């Protein structure tokens, strides 16, 4: 049996919303980071779904680019997080607010 494309899109929208809300409400840097990944992959899911629904391989290939960029972003992001944790143990995103106007 095949599941209709709308279900996948609904799932992706829910995942994206969870990610976005998580990013806004959580203070833990690592959790925020995971939320970003959640959003990225929700988008990936939509891409794949549309590729399937519209019978267009373009959507699938974009996903590869997103994966690559996301991997690079993870490296940079984790690098920043590690260097923050080196300076102070148990920190939240709000502690890193020295660049405010």
């Amino acid at each position, binding site marked *: 049996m095949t599941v209709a494309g709308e279900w996948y899109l609904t799932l992706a929208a829910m995942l994206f919303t969870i990610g*976005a809300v998580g*990013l*806004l*409400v959580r203070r833990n840097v690592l959790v*925020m980071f995971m939320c970003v990944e959640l959003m990225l992959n929700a988008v990936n899911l939509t891409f794949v779904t549309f590729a399937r629904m519209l019978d267009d391989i373009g959507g699938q290939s974009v996903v590869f680019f997103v994966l690559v960029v996301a991997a690079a972003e993870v490296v940079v992001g984790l690098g920043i997080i590690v260097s923050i944790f080196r300076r102070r143990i148990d920190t939240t*995103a*709000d502690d*890193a*607010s*020295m*660049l*405010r*106007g």
Partner: protein
Amino acid sequence: MTDAVWLIPALPLAGFLILLVAGRRLGDPLAGWLATAMSGASFLVTLAVFIDLMGEPGEERHVVEDVFTWISAGQLHVNVGFLVDPLSVTMALFVTGVGTLIHLYSVGYMHGDDRYPTFFVYLNLFAFSMLTLVLADNFLLTFVGWEGVGACSYFLISFWFERPAAPSAGKKAFVTNRVGDFGFMVAMFLIFATFGSLQYTEVLEGASTIAEGTATAIVLLLFLGAAGKSAQLPLYVWLPDAMEGPTPVSALIHAATMVTAGVFLMVRVNPFIDAAPDAATVIAVVGALTALFAATVACSQNDIKRVLAYSTISQLGYMFLAVGSEAYAAAVFHMVTHAFFKALLFLGAGSVIHGLHDEQDMKLMGGLRRWMPITSATFIVGWLAIAGVPPFAGFWSKDDILANAYDVSPGLWAVGLVTALLTAYYMARQVFLVFFGDERWKAAAEGEGQAAHASGAHGDFRPHESPWTMALPLVVLAFLSLVGGLLNLPFKGTHHLETWLEPVFGEGGKTLHHLTLSASTKLGLAALATAASLLGIGIAYLIYLRHKVREETVEPLVLRRAWYVDPLYARIIEAPGRLLSTFSANVVDSKVIDGAVNGVAALVRAGGSRLRVLQSGYVRNYALAVASGAALVLGYVVVRAGG
């Protein structure tokens, strides 16, 4: 040989470049000799070109030598090219000839000066600019030379910048000349708008075809430029002050060559003047008034160089009187003879100043003829030449101008005659004060000598004759002042200069032997001019040698102050200018300009302080902004798609 004409300005340019790089290493006197050699070589090339041109038949004496294309933009094509014709070669001959003599003189005069090589750098640059000016084949290149000589004039007037008067005199010359340059430039624009070209050959050919109003405008604007450069009313004020420069500079730039550039320009554009009789009248009247005005001032000056400066202004007025009378050959003739005798007089004055250890006040001189025989003999030749005593050069050229002026208007002639009388008078006054009479410098020197005696300097103060480098130019120029009239005698078959220049003037130009005046009228005019000269000399003799009248009574304050023209200019130009600049500084600048700048800054600061609260530093705030922004865009798209 005419294709080597580019060498004429190139040689002084080479001298300028070499001296610029290696002048200090060459030092005193080698730098001076190099500059003199370059100027002399340039003279020899000019001579060769002149002989070559003489070999051509009259109507073919007009060669344009293009060196390279300088500007090519749209309609405007300007070449760096040289026009070889009788007029330009005549100018180049006396510029390089007199210039070389003055270079030679400077070798002796500037000896011992701290900035000796620099002086010759400027002098060679001047020679280059002046030759570019006279040889150029288009208005723009002439203008380049025109500005070049102006800049050199500025450099050289302010050469001794330690004296506070020198730089301010230089600035005065520069600023006054700007007024004239404005006229020159507008005239160029007008010429280009009318003809689409700046080439002399093309423009002058079309001069008779344009409307008289346009021709009048062009001539008057060019005359404004000429009046600035050639020190005519009302722009003459810079020339007397220019005497702050070293004396060879006064001789070269402010007597013989640069100040005649204006006359040259007017002669060059003579077809326009023929086409604009009203403008010609203006030129003649301004020239005559300047001649008379400056001559009156010269009668009461005590500075040996200022007398000569006012005399130069007066003689330039004569030249413009000739130009305005459309007697261009007479103007060039007087320009050449004036270059001889006025350079001679200035160099003689320099020799006197040198011999008396920088004394310039004629009232503190006297009786110098026994101490400085060469200087006094040559100076006297120059005096007789400028006074118009036959058979010296000045007599012939002045007579030529006066006869032409008489033909145009007896009124102008009368002004010229009175000027001739005054000229003879003030020059005789100068000669008597400097070379004859009591040795007044002795008293002055003794007073000074006692003060200086303790230090051992000036122990035996005595005027001394100048070295041969200074004496030789004096002798050569004295010879030329004596025989210069041979260039253009008013007898049958002897007006060489007129015949030579004829191709340049075309139909319109008048010459003495074309005048309708009868021979007896001409003779009568010459006799009157001679009588006026002798009368002037006689009056000066009675006052300054016989002391029949107290000197002070014939030197009223108003003349010693030069008719109060400088204070007048200060009143009507400087004072409003000062008011305007005060207003600009205190109101426009501090309120309007600063207000605008500070207002923008305050606005940005106020805006920034309100906007900075948005930058909280909390990532979630930014994320919220991004998310709500995305939601807004999305909502808009959905609504639009739905609608």
